[in-house]
Each structure stands twice: as C-alpha cells, then as structure tokens.
C-alpha cells in the first residue's frame, strides 16, 4: 500500500493478506470433550449415529411411501383417464391440481417415475415470460425421450423455433409413429402459485389449441388444498379450456401422527434412540405452529438424534460394548452408573473385575431399557385401542384428543405413574370402570381386538408378554354365555388394569445408563432451527467474545498462543476496548438518546480506540519477555496464515500473542486492517519495532480510526440499527431501544 495516503483519497484498497480466520475445527463451539481421553469414542459415536439415524430415516420413508401410495395411484389414474362426455364444443386440456402442502416435490417425482410417458418439470423461474415458458415446456418434453434430436440438423433460423408449439407437434407425430401408441405428454408445474398467471394463461391457451392431436396434460402442484386458486386468479376464458380434476393429499397433523405412531410409538418397530417427552413435544409443537412439511419434520428428528450423540460420549455404547474399552470410557460409565445406583458396583475389588462388571451392567441395561420402552409402547397402543373403541361405541372414554395431543399423551407414559401430572393413575382407573360397564356384545368385540393386538406383537424373549398373551386367551375363551358377562367384564377389567400397571411400573430413568438410549427431558435445541433473529443479533453485538472465542472447556493446547491465552482468560475482563469495533460502537449507541450526533459518536468511539491502543502497547510490553521465549514458535504459525514473509515479519511483533489468541475473528480482521499501513515501512528486524511504531504519525492513526468508525457504522446500518433522518444533518436515528443489557 502506498505511503502517500491522504484524506483526499476517497477509496482505500485493503488487500486480503491471508490470515487468521482460517477455520480451526478444534475451536468450534460445542466440540466433543472426548479428546481428553476417549480415543475410540468420537468415531464410534459418529458411526453409531449414522446407523441409528439411517434406520429411523428408512422407517419414516417407508411409512411415507405407504401413506402416499393410494394417492399416487389416484393421480396416475387421472392422468390416464381420457374419457370425456361426447359433444363438448371443444376438447379440454386435462389439468390435475394437487394440493400438496406437506410432501413437496418428492410426491410428484414418484408419480412421474411411475408413468411411462414423457414428462417434464417446470418451475416458476423457468417461466418468467411466454417464450421461456414455452421453450422450457417443449424442450423438456422432447428431451425426456431418447429421440430428442432431429436427425438432420439445420441452422437455428432455418428450422422451427424451439418455443413453437408446432415443433412439439411435429416431434409428437414422429414419436407416435415410432412408438405405435399415443402417450400423454405430462408437464408438472411445481409451486403453481408462483407462476405468473398472465404467462400461464397463454400457455394453456396455446396448448389447448393443439388438442386433440397433441395429448398434453398438466399437473399443478398447489400449496392450498382446494383448486380455488385457479378459480380466483385465472379468467373464465382460461378455465373454459381446462378440465380440472383435483387430488387431495393428506396434510396437517394426521401426517405427523401417522409417522410418529408407526415409529416412536409403535410396538412393532424398535427405535434405537428413544425420544423423550421434551423432544417429542417440541417436534409436535413446531409442526403445528410453524412448518407443516415432511422435510422439516425429518430435520427435527434428525437434530434430536444429532444432539443425543453429540452431548454424551457414552452414546457410542448404543449398539454394542467394545471388548476393550478405554479407561476413560469406563470411568464415565461408572460415574453415570453410580449417579443412578450407588450400590451397583459395591463389593467388587480389582480392576479387571470392575471392568467386567461395568461391561456386564452396560449390556444388561441395553436389553432392559429396550424392554421397558417396548412395554410403554404396548401400554400406549392398548390404551389407544380401547379409547378408539370407546369413541366408536359412543362413549367419551378418556377424553383424550388423539388428533392434537398425541405427543403429550404418549409423553405422559414416560412419567412416573404415581405422579399427578401424568394423570395415568386416574386414566387407568377410569378405563377399567368403563370396561366393567360394557355389554356382552361390545365386550366380545373389544376382547377380540385386544386379542388380535396382543397376538400380533412379537413376544420373543419376553416371558411376561408371552404369559400375558396366553392369559388373555384363556380369559376370553371362558366368556361364552350371557349370564356371566358381568363377571367376565370385571375379570377383564382387572386383567387390563393389572397388565397396564405392570407395563408402566418403572420409569426409563431408573435404569442404569439410561442416557445412552433415551433422550429424557433434554430440551430440544430449538435455537438451531428457529432462532430469534433479533435476540441473536443483539447478544452477538453485546457479547461477541462469548460467540467467537473457543469454548473455555477445550482450549487448543497445542498452540503456544493459547497457553498464554489460558493464563489471561483468568482475567476475564469484558472491558470495552477488548471488543470488536462494531460492538464498541454499538455499546455507545445504547448510551445515546433517540437521535445520535454522528460526530459525538465518533469521538466516543475514538476515545475507546485510544484506550485500546494504550492497552495493547502495555500488554505487549508485558508480554515482551514471554514473546521472546515464544517468538520462535509463534511467528511461524502466523507466518503461515499471513501467507507472506514480509507481512508476517511485520505483523508478528505488532500484536501480543495474548491478545491475538483471545480475539474473535472479527476482531482479528480489524486488527489486520489496522496493521496494513505499517507493512510498508516496518523494518524486517523485530528489534526496530518500537522505534518504527513511535514514528507512526498521528495523522495515520486518525485516518485509521475514521476508517474503522465508518466501517463499524456501515455494519450497524446494514444490520438495521440506524435510520437516516433528514431532519437534522449529522444525526442518525436509533431504531432499537430498551435493551436488557446484562
């Protein structure tokens, strides 16, 4: 950079010199703590996560497939349906409007892959005007087949334009003659609401003019459930060209309930990770309140999985226990075991014995917790089955709202039965009460249903369940006559009551090491999917260091700078001058009134920078001795980042290692900007540094402060904190007030 920078110059170029902000994975917040002593754990956990999640995802996808199957059939039938009442004034263009708010494009892709006809997908961005829309439609259809290029090539101007419908007609004629059939040409319009109606109006008209020679058909994917959109937006003249059919796809809560019922609530599917009530309720709440799409649902469940595996290193034990676990892992397991049951490993002496005992306990818990979880699911299904039966028969039953509160009801099963909040105790009592009042016919049907349900469960390896199955069979066989129906009802009520009580006897949290398999009451990491923009913006500006600095639990012990940093983090002062420029400016912003005089603001900012300059000098003076010692190792590391020998030489002594390690990336960037001017006149020798610095003219410093001020100001402006007012020159208005500072 040139030396002759003056105030007259309006633009400065600050070349990127490589630098400090290269990503260092170890510094990421929330990094696993197992580097400390879990050599096998990290990778194993990732593998375990992958396995568990792919099982879950496969299951969800197969459920979705099953859910959509009839609807895919319906759409295909509509597409192939060519019947029309004879005597219509003109042929109609078949249009199938699909309301598809939940499943997105995957449904339509399935439809297209099933149909053996040329098809094309059009998106709103393809159809900004009529020419592009027609071109997208025609080339899409032509290219969907093998025979996409005419055998003889002509110059573009010598053949038909590829947005001319006659081009498509000619191709179709050829296609029909080679195929021997007249297939439907399918165009799928995604997000139909976003298409420009004036363009689509013409597209529909043009296509309808080619009927019946050209068998075109459209599928519109709408996000509203009824074809009202077409009727509201398109003129009658266009509607008259179309034959609109509708296919409605399940949407809303029923999809969520269906998926949950067949995954985490189902006694027929063993989920490896057990989602706790907190996570389930958040998922359900988010689905109801914010985003009703399958994609978001899957993302939420996946996040729960990810969090589960990233928080606890013990989760690597989810599937199996390694034969030679590391001592740290064993220790962690032991701590966890002792936290639940203090006497679990009493009376065991010797390291090997203890190790074996721990492994044994782990394996035992694994099967135990799965059994317990299964009993909860069986209990839930049985109760739900009876509840549905009662509602069908016209009873109120347990007054459960299975549509809206499914997650809450299931979550209640995880709680202790005796706990009031779960309401389980009362529900069970009420169930047996209703059971006793059923008439023989109802009783017979219900017992039949329960019997079928019990028989359908795989009781392999579960003696209690096997016993229950035979017990119930015996119970139902005896109730042939009408006279003893009262007693049979009472018997059955007692049996159901006992059975459910046994199933819900123990909480999952009572089992050793439950946290390996069960997420429990761990809250959902909601800030990851739905953060509050304003709040994160403000907290970022108010406490930037907490965001950017490596988490204090995992200091990067290998770099020499960090060791120093470790020493100084003890002096965790949040003095203003340590913050990045934007934060400094923002703090001052908070202190001001409704209108801010920009010059005053600048002066206050300058004052802080002066302090910063002084402090940096002081710290460097203090760190000099240390710097000499560390100098050999610290400069190369920086030099690598800086990318140039000269730059590194200039930069290294300027900043104390202490400061460097402690600073946020943003801060470092600023720092760099500050150092740039000195690069030119800085000597190669470290020793001359001080003198060089003293020679730095006050003018240069002023320019730098101004530049930094303007930059920070613009950043705040960009973030929306400043409103430009024309009422008073030199003033800007605040947009944000009343911030709860600390």
């Amino acid at each position, binding site marked *: 950079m040139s030396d002759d920078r003056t105030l007259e110059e309006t633009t400065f170029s600050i070349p990127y010199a490589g630098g400090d902000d290269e990503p260092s994975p170890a510094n990421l917040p929330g990094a696993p703590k197992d580097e400390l002593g879990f050599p096998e754990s990290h990778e194993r956990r990732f593998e375990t996560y992958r396995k568990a999640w792919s099982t879950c995802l496969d299951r969800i996808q197969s459920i979705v497939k099953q859910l959509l199957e009839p609807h895919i059939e319906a759409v295909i039938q509509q597409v192939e349906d060519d*019947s*029309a*009442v*004879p*005597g*219509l*004034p003109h*042929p*109609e263009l078949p249009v199938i409007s699909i*309301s598809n708010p939940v499943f997105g494009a995957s449904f339509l892709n399935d439809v297209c892959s099933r149909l053996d006809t040329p098809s094309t997908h059009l998106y709103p961005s393809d159809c900004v005007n009529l020419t592009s829309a027609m071109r997208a439609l025609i080339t899409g259809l032509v290219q969907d087949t093998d025979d996409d290029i*005419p*055998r*003889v*090539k*002509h110059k573009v*101007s*010598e*053949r*038909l*334009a590829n*947005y001319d419908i*006659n*081009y498509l*007609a*000619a191709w179709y*004629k*050829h*296609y029909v003659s080679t195929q021997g059939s007249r297939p439907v040409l399918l165009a799928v319009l995604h*997000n139909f*609401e976003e298409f420009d109606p004036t363009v689509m109006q*013409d597209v529909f*008209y*043009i296509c309808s003019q080619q009927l*019946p020679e050209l068998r075109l058909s459209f599928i519109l994917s709408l*996000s*509203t*459930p*009824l074809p*009202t*959109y077409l*009727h509201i*937006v398109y003129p009658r003249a266009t509607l*008259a060209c*179309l*034959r*609109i059919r509708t296919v409605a796809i399940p*949407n*809303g809560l029923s999809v969520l309930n269906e998926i949950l019922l067949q995954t985490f609530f189902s006694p027929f599917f063993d989920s490896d990770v057990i989602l706790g009530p907190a996570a389930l*309720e*958040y998922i359900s*709440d988010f689905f*109801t*309140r*914010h*985003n*009703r799409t399958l994609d978001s649902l899957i993302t939420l469940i996946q996040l729960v999985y990810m969090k589960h595996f990233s928080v606890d290193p013990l989760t690597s034990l989810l599937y199996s226990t390694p034969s030679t676990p590391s001592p740290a892992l064993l220790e962690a397991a032991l701590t966890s075991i002792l936290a639940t049951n203090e006497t679990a490993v009493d009376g065991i002496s010797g390291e090997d014995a203890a190790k074996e005992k721990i492994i044994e306990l782990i394996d035992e818990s694994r099967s135990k917790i799965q059994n317990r979880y299964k009993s909860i699911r069986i209990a839930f299904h049985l109760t739900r089955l009876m509840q549905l039966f009662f509602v069908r028969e016209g009873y109120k039953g347990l007054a459960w709202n299975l549509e809206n509160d499914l997650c809450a009801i299931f979550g209640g099963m995880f709680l202790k039965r005796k706990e009031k909040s779960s309401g389980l105790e009362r529900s069970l009592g009420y169930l047996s009460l209703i059971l006793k009042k059923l008439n023989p016919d109802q009783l017979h049907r219900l017992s039949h249903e329960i019997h079928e349900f019990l028989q359908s469960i795989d009781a392999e390896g579960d003696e209690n369940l096997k016993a229950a199955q035979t017990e119930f069979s015996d119970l139902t066989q005896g109730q042939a006559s009408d006279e003893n129906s009262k007693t049979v009802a009472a018997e059955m009520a007692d049996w159901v009551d006992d059975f459910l009580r046994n199933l819900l006897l123990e909480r999952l949290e009572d089992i050793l090491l439950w946290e390996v398999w069960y997420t429990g009451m761990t809250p959902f990491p909601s800030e990851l999917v739905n953060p*509050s*923009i*304003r*709040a994160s913006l403000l907290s970022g500006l108010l406490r930037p260091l907490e965001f950017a600095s490596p988490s204090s639990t995992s200091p990067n012990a290998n770099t020499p700078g960090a060791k120093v940093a470790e020493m100084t983090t003890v002096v965790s002062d949040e003095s203003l001058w340590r913050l990045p420029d934007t934060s400094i400016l923002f703090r001052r912003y908070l202190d001001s009134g409704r209108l801010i005089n920009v010059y005053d603001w600048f002066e206050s900012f300058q004052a802080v920078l002066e302090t910063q300059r002084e402090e940096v000098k002081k710290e460097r003076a203090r760190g000099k001795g240390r710097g000499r010692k560390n100098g050999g190792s610290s400069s190369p590391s920086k030099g690598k980042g800086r990318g140039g020998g000269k730059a590194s030489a200039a930069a290294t002594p300027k900043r104390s290692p202490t400061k460097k390690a402690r600073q946020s990336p943003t801060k470092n960037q600023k720092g760099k900007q500050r150092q740039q001017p000195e690069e030119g006149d800085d000597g190669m020798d470290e020793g001359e540094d001080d003198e060089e610095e003293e020679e730095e003219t006050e003018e240069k410093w002023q320019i730098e402060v101004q530049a930094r001020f303007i930059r920070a100001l613009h950043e705040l402006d960009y973030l929306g904190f400043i409103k430009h007012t024309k009422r008073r020159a030199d003033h800007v208005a605040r947009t944000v007030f009343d911030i709860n500072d600390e």
Partner: protein
Amino acid sequence: MTLSQPDDYTFDCTAYGDVGLELSTLISSYPPPFIYIHDSSDGLKVNARVITKLLQKPSEPSQEHGPITKVCFGWADAACCFTQRLLFEALIHSLVGHTLDWDEGCPNWALDNGSQWNENLDSFLQGLREAHTHLSKRFGVDSTGAAQSTDRKGKGKVQEYNGVRIVLVVARAERLKESMPELLVSLARLRELVRLDLCVVLSSEVEWDKIKSPLGAAPDPYFVDIPPLTKEDTVSLLTARYPALTSENPTLYHPSLKSLYSHFVAVLCDVCYLYTHDPNELKYIAAARWPGFVKPVLDEHQSQMDEEPEDEQRDIEPPSEDVRLRLTRLFSSSLSLALEALYPRLTDASDWAKVNEPPSDLLSKPPAEAKVTTASPTSALGTGSLLGHLPRLSKFILVASFLASTNPAKSDVRMFGRGLDEKKRRRRKAQATVKPKGGVSKVPQRLLGPSPFPLDRLVALLGALLEEHDVDSRLPAPEFTIPGEYTDMEISRVAINAAVQELSSSRLMHRTTKAEQIDGPAMFKCAISYDLAWALSKELKIPLADLLWEQV
C-alpha cells in the same frame, strides 16, 4: 377419439350466413387489401380456422366462366404466435401447406436458394413473393403475368387458374397490439408493400379503433361486423350440430332422437339465455346434461329390448309428446343448477354428468316418485377447510395482515395498546364505533380494498395478537420471565419471516415491493377475503369484530 372436432367448425349454419357470403364474394372477386372482422357476437370465438373454412368453401367455384383466380389462404392465431417469427412462420407454412417433418429436422419451408424469410419484415415480404411464385407454379399459373394482369389468358395449354390470390387471416388480432405493435401498420398495408394480389384479414373481438396505431399510420380497413346471435340463431346453431354428434356417438345421439334434442336445446336456451349467450357455453352445458336427459328414454328402450329379445334390431323410437313433456318437466330445474356449476367451471362436464346421472327407469316410476336430484358442486369457493393446512402461526399472520390492511395505521395504538389501566381499552371500543362527522362521507376501507403495510407493522400486530390469544397453547418456557418476553422472542424468529415469505408466495398475501429491493421495509397487502379472515379468527378465538377500526 374426437378427431372429427375440427370439422365442427365448418359452419354451414345461419349464424355466419350473411357474413360468410359477404366475405366469400369479396375474396373471390375484388377483395379490399385489408379486411377487419369485428366479432361482437359474445364469444362466438371466430378463430382463424373458422374463417379459413368459411372462406374456402365458395372459393372452389366451377369453371364455367373460364380461368379464375386461385385463392390461397394463410392463417395464424396471434395469441399462439407471440413473436414476429412465429407469426411469419405460421402464415407462410399454412399458405404453402408446408408439413413439418421431425426426421428432416423440422426445417422451415424454403425454396432452393435458401433465403431466410422469418427474420424481419423485409425478408417476410420476400418470403411472400417466393411463396407466391411457388404457388403459381404449383397451380400452373404464369406468375409474372398473373400477378400484374389477371385478364391474360394462358398461352397454348389450358390454364385452370389465371392467377394466385393470397389471403392472410390473423385471428385474435388484439394480441398484436401488445406483442408486436410495430407490425400492425405493415400488415394493414401489406398489399402495397408486397405488390401482389393479396388480402389481409384481421379478426378480433376488440374494435379496430382500440387497437389501431396512432396518427393514422394504418389505412382504414373494410369493416365486417358479425352481429350478435339471436336466440333463434343460437338454438339452430346448437341443433345443427346433431349430425356431427351422431357420427361421434351413435347411441347417445341416435338419429331418431333428433327432434327430442332440438326440444331439449330450446328448453336449455330458455333457461340459460338470461345468463349467457355464448353458444360454446350452451353446448357445454348441453353436452353435460344430455346423457342424463336421454337416459330414461334409452333405459326404456333397453327394457323393451329385454322383454322382446327376438326383436333385436329394433331401433329407438322417437319419444312421444307426452314423454317429452315429462322429461322437460323433470329436468328443467336441473338445467339452471348445471349452469351454476358449469359456467364458472366449478366442475367439468364429464364429472358433472357422471355425478348427476338420473336414477334408472325413471319413466316407469309414478310421476310423484320420479325426481331428478342434482348434487351441488363441492363448494370450492367456500371457506370451510380452505386453510386447514396452514400452521397455527401462519393463520395468526393472515389475521394480522387482514387487520393491518383494513385498519388505519394510526389506530393501532388505540386498538392494541395494552396500558396498565383498563380504562384505555374500554375507550377504544367506544372509539371504534364513532362515525365520521359530516362532510363527504368516507368510503369504508373494506370497500376500498386492502391497503399496503410494512413488514414491521405486521410483526407488531402479530405480537399483539399472540400475546392476547396464543399464550395458552405455548409450550412451557421457564427461561422467559419478563411478561411479554416470550412473544417478543417469538415474533422475531426465523420461522415467522419464513412463514411471511411462504404466504406471499402462495398468494395469500401480496408483496407490493420488489423482492430484490432491500432498501426500506418490505411492503405487503392482505389477500384474503373478509369471510376467510372471519373464519380464521373464529378458529383462533380472536374477536375480530372488536379489533376492526370500522365496524362492519
């Protein structure tokens, strides 16, 4: 299938009678260079093919009077030909009868010299001349002589034609004004430009005065007005299709049922003529109702066949006057219902016919029992489950957008402000009913349509609504201790902004500022109706009436 449809357009009916005669006389004798057909007949939909067919018929006269001029037609639909190139190609290809072959690479029609004629007007004129030469050769006309002096007789061999006359028809010509306004004048003066025996026919539902270029650059055309159809014309137009329909479906449109059909059409026109004169719509409704109307007759015939199986070939007899009257009485009420469902296309004809099929053996039942019921179309425009798919907060956003678009911004503090004392809130109710005093009475905002509002205001209103009406449905959040903090966090969340975006892309809200504009707040407009907002607020338990500034 319905391949016979285009023939349907060979209107021999009376509707076009006078006009057809006028046009064909003009074209075959001495046509004006530029004819403008204004179709005021309320949707008779004169498309290019119709005119071409209309003109073609009389242009094949006998050769009694010696060689005549051969008339060749080129036609295009200006709505389909949205660029100049497409228009030129459509005109010339239809003029020379060029067929497109995929195997040959869909080449344009071209003479051997390979000149381009689709690029601009100049080349198009050249192309027309070439086409003329080509056609002259094809029909054995000496083009140079024919073009200039039509009276020159052939030399030596007998000439069938003494010249080629080109007629170019452009339908829906009003579209030319938007898509290629610069071409209108040139088309109007095409004969001057190309110096051939040529006539341009433009046809449109719009008057020439509305689309002609300013400053009188285009010469005035020869005007041909198609008069509106009378009811009798419409009836005969519909009845005249019967032979074509018979060939399409001989059972349903049996020849002996023709008189029944003409009565049916007469009744249909009686019922529907009040609402629509469009013969296409009437045909559409007729097509939907006829299968049901004729079903009792066919059923009866079938049962007679079953009784006397030996008489297999017995044909359907035309129904008696009595049966006809009975059918008319039974079905006349369903005709207006058909109109209600089919005219706005709430359902289509095939579905309607399927759903509203009358019970079998209707005629054999006693008159008191025989009834034709019509299923009302699923009320597609109802509010019922229309927005059931929306997440809860999107519903709140929609209600907030409705309030923001209906209430003046100044009233917000008073309507939603939640002072510590309840006095203020009480006052706002009284305030809300205040009528504007004297002067020019103000038009209610509800009738003016939604007013735009910035995103900030929407979010603020949303916050007020959530704080008042959504607290109960939230998950417990112990970390928020200050009253209102939860809402404050909630309204600035990513999901809210995403939902606003989502709603505006599904056109439940209109964004009035451009998406790429980042300077200043995004402005929106509410796009849901009052009824919908009412239904939503009822679902969310928001007292909408109390929150509206102007009482409805």
